[in-house]
C-alpha cells in the first residue's frame, strides 16, 4: 500500500579520489555537475531529473554508500513516516535543512541490513537540464559520455534482508516486485518498487552489513547500452560484465566500476509493476539465468565484489 514515498531522491557515495570520481560520473556517465559544497562534496544529476541533484560524491578513505534517500509527497508524509519508523524500532535522526545544499530536512534511519536510509520531501527544483519547462525540446544538446538520464536504483547487500524488506513494505509502502527463493522458500533477493518501475531498490542476502553492490542509471535504448560499452572500452574503464540482459527485471545492462571500486550500472528497458501484481519469482536453482540471462552462469564477482 502506498504511503506517500515517491521515488529515489539521492545517493551519497564515498570515493577515494574526487577528481577521478568526477571524471567517471560527469564525463563518462554523462551526469551534470550541479554544485559543490564547503565539505568538498560534488552534486550531480541526470539530465531528465527535475530536482537539483540525485548523486552526491564525498571523498573518504573507503569506498561505498553513505546513504540513499527517498522523496516523499510532502512534509506531512515525512512527519508521519518518521513516527512510524520510531515505533518500528529504527534509530531515527533528523538531518537539518541545508546539510545538503538545496535540500530540505531529511529523516535518516538505520536498517537490519546495516544500511542508512533517508526520507525527505523538499528539494530545490531546477527542472530538466538544458530544457525549458514550456515547449521543451526532445533532449538538450551538450550532453557528454553515456548521457545517463537519471539515477534509477541501487542494489544493496547485507544480512537479514527479510528485516529490511519488511521495513520497506510495511512502513514505507514499497511493493515486492521480484524475488529469488531457495528450495526452502527463504528469500535470497528482493526487488522493491514504489512506482511502476521494476525496482526502486533491491537487496541480496549477504553476511557483511551495509554493502553497496551498484548504483544504477537509466538509458533509453539497447543501442545506448552498446554505446556505453564502447565508451567503457575507449576510456579503459574497469569492466565487470556486459552488455547483457538480466533475467530479474529483464533489463538490458552493463556493469562497470568507478575509479574507487564502486560498481556502476547503466541499463535500458525492464518490466513494469502495478500494486496488484504478484511478485515475480526466480528459483535459486536458476540463479545464473536470473542474474545474467544470456551467460546463465553467475560470475563470482557478482556475489563477492562489493564496497
Amino acid at each position, binding site marked *: 500500500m502506498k504511503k506517500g514515498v515517491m521515488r529515489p531522491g539521492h545517493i551519497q557515495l564515498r570515493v577515494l579520489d574526487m577528481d577521478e570520481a568526477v571524471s567517471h560520473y560527469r564525463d563518462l556517465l554523462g551526469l551534470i555537475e550541479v554544485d559543490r559544497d564547503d565539505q568538498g562534496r560534488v552534486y550531480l544529476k541526470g539530465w531528465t531529473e527535475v530536482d537539483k541533484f540525485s548523486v552526491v560524491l564525498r571523498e573518504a578513505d573507503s*569506498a*561505498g554508500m553513505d546513504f540513499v534517500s527517498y522523496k516523499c509527497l510532502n512534509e506531512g508524509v515525512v512527519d508521519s513516516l518518521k513516527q512510524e519508523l520510531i515505533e518500528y524500532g529504527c534509530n531515527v535522526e533528523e538531518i537539518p535543512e541545508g546539510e545538503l545544499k538545496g535540500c530540505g530536512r531529511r529523516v535518516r534511519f538505520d536498517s537490519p541490513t546495516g544500511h542508512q536510509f533517508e526520507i525527505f520531501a523538499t528539494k530545490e527544483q531546477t527542472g530538466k537540464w538544458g530544457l525549458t519547462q514550456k515547449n521543451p525540446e526532445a533532449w538538450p544538446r551538450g550532453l557528454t559520455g553515456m548521457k545517463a538520464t537519471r539515477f534509477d536504483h541501487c542494489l544493496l547487500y547485507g544480512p537479514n534482508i527479510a528485516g529490511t524488506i519488511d521495513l520497506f513494505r510495511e512502513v514505507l509502502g514499497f511493493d515486492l516486485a521480484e524475488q529469488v527463493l531457495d528450495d526452502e522458500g527463504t528469500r*535470497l533477493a528482493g526487488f522493491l518498487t514504489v512506482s511502476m518501475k521494476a525496482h526502486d531498490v533491491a537487496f541480496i542476502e549477504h*553476511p557483511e552489513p551495509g554493502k553497496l553492490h551498484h548504483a544504477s542509471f537509466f538509458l533509453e535504448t539497447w543501442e545506448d547500452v552498446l554505446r556505453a560499452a564502447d565508451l567503457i572500452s575507449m576510456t579503459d574503464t*574497469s569492466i565487470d560484465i556486459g552488455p547483457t540482459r538480466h533475467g530479474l527485471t529483464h533489463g538490458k545492462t552493463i556493469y562497470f566500476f*568507478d575509479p574507487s571500486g*564502486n560498481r556502476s550500472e547503466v541499463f535500458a528497458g525492464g518490466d513494469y509493476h502495478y500494486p496488484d501484481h504478484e511478485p515475480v519469482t526466480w528459483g535459486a536453482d536458476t540463479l545464473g539465468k536470473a542474474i545474467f540471462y544470456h551467460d546463465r552462469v553467475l560470475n563470482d564477482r557478482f*556475489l563477492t*565484489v562489493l*564496497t
Partner: protein
Amino acid sequence: MKQPINATPYPQDTHRIHILDSEAVFEARADLNLLVAMEKARAQGIGIGCRGGGCGKCRIRVLKGEYDSKRMSRAWVSEADEAEGIVLACRIFPRSELVVESEMLPLAEPYQPRSSSKLQSAAIK
C-alpha cells in the same frame, strides 16, 4: 616508496613479479597497477575485483621489493597493515622485482569474499 603516483612514470619499465600462491611469474609494466598488469600477462593468483581500491578482493602482502601506491580503502588496509606491506594489488605500481602472496581479509565474520556465501552455495547446487 608509497608516494602518490605521478602520471605514467617510466612507462617503458617492467619488473618481474612472483606470486607465491600460484607460483606465477610475470613481467609487469611500471605504469600499470599490479592487478591489471597480472591480468594483461594472463597470470593468476591475485583475486580480481573492482580494480579501483574499493572492494578488497586483491589484498596481498608484499614480501620483497619496492612499489608506489595510490589511496586504498581503509576498510581493507589499515595504516598498520600498510606499514607491514599489506596492500591492494590494484593500487600499487611496481618499482622493482616484487614477491607477493595473497592475504586474507580482516573481517570479524569467518566469511571471506573468496569463499562461498548462502547465495553462492545456492548457485552452485
